[in-house]
């Protein structure tokens, strides 16, 4: 079952199309990362999914319910953090969390539970105005956890945090599906962070989802490359070509695709036999960033070709 399902979502502001047909399928139990550059439409999609905005066209279902028609029942069952943490500085952490408790008809005892999850029990009676950004962010996440929602929608939850804060939030998000039995839909442009916490990714580019994958499958699909730092580069490239191996040259070496570990030793022996000086041979596993850039480049090339 999908906890979020959208079909051809479209939204324009003053005639400027921000979403141009967003199709998403977020499976239950996933930590689903929603990636895209600034201005790609991530926040707009999230605002539609939380009912803050209405789509001009298309359909959005959250937990099997139409968000436009059943906004309040949907919001009663999810927790959402839209952009930076917006909290009441005059209230204490406990008072602020009591707002979510009352509106979700949840016992006020849930406050201590969620404060334990984000490790902020000690700050229960402190005023939010005295909190650091990291503490506010954790409190905002705690607020989304009130009532043990089935789905969390988090918009850039690590924005503006220091490395320690980012790590804390990442660990928290990673653990949530197991601890809370919920799914997490998280938008970000910090690919390194996403790679460490997500189970699924979708890439939004200019208002369209151009790729959507299980991260494990994605990693299996990605071909690792061999970086060969050697001398001389030109004649080595020719030598490789004669062996039917295509290489790409960069400043200090050659990149080779389509090799297995077993191919490495014979290859190096062959090159040494032809007086190639080899300084380094290193396998490179493509990162999410490589995938992100690759997908965007493909999308740009496709749009240029169409133009």
């Amino acid at each position, binding site marked *: 079952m999908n906890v979020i399902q959208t079909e051809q979502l479209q939204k324009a*502001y003053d005639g400027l199309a921000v979403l141009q047909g967003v199709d998403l399928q977020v499976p239950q139990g996933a930590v689903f990362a929603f990636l895209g550059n600034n201005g790609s439409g991530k926040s707009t999609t999230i*605002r539609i999914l*939380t*009912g*803050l*905005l*209405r789509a001009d066209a298309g359909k959005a279902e959250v937990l099997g319910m139409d968000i436009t028609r059943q*906004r*309040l*029942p949907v*919001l*009663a069952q999810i927790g*959402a*953090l*839209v*952009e*930076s943490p*917006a*909290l*009441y*500085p*005059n*209230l204490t952490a406990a*008072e602020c969390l*009591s*707002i*979510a408790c*009352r*509106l*979700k*008809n949840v016992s006020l005892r849930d406050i201590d539970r969620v404060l334990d999850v984000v490790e902020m029990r000690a700050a229960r009676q402190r*005023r939010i105005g005295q909190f650091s950004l990291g503490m506010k962010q954790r409190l*905002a996440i705690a*607020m989304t956890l009130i009532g043990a929602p089935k789905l969390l929608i988090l918009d850039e939850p690590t924005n503006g945090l220091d490395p320690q804060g980012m790590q804390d939030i990442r660990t928290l998000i990673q653990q949530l599906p197991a601890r809370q039995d919920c799914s997490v839909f998280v938008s970000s442009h910090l690919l390194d962070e996403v790679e460490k916490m997500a189970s699924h990714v979708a890439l939004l580019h200019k208002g369209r989802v151009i790729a959507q994958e299980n991260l494990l499958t994605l990693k299996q699909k990605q071909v690792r490359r061999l970086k060969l730092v050697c001398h001389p580069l030109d004649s080595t490239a020719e030598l490789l070509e004669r062996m039917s191996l295509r290489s790409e040259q960069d400043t200090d070496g050659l990149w080779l695709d389509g090799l297995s570990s077993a191919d490495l030793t014979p290859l190096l022996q062959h090159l040494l036999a032809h007086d190639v000086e080899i300084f380094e041979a290193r396998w490179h596993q493509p990162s999410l960033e490589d995938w992100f850039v690759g997908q965007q480049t493909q999308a740009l090339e496709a749009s240029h070709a169409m133009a």
Partner: protein
Amino acid sequence: MQWLNLWRIEWLKTRRTFVLLMLFLCPLATALFPLAQHLHNGGATIEAKGWDVYWQNAVLMWTFLMMPMFCVLSSALLVQSEHVNQTWRVMLTLPVSQAQLYLVKLLMAWSFVVLAGCLMLLLCAAGVALLVWQGFPAHDAFAYPFIKTMGLVALSCFPMVVFQHAVSWRFTHLMAILTIGLVTTLGISFVARSEYWVYYPWGYPMLALSPADELSHQALLLSGLVGGLMALVTTWWFGKREVGV
């Protein structure tokens, strides 16, 4: 149940805020005005005209100046806390509709104005007690119709509260809200005593307190109609507006 929860939440949000201080300061300033005036003239006016003049001075100042200004301030401060901290996003990602939030905040603003009016009369009563203790004549000191006055002011200020609440909801800049409030308050002195008062809801409280029953009833009826209509229209309008565009 959700309405009650929202009402409690809105009260919770006012904790440790300036609006609570204003709820005390504005009535206090109003109550001090006749006290100082009559202490200054040594009770001569009260001896000549009775205690009604004391109460009327306070009520006139309240309906003419302080209540409209307090209405502007309290509405602005109640809504500003959401604008400044962008807490609309928090509230509207919880199971509550924009229309519900708008209406509950409107009722909060109205109850603040009513509460401030009650407090003003209580503080005036304390002032009268102080003067009686100081040797002013005690006869008919508390004969003024408090409850009727409070009721009339509370009902007739509703259109003013709705207008100012809508302005506070629409504009995020505090200065814009206060300027609009100041201009409409100043307008009371020009319009309320003219034949065009029916078109100017800020003058309704003064006219509702008029000794002429017909005028008072007319002002009350208009307050209900105009206030109710404005509340309906603005709730519909702000209920359908998108957030965060």
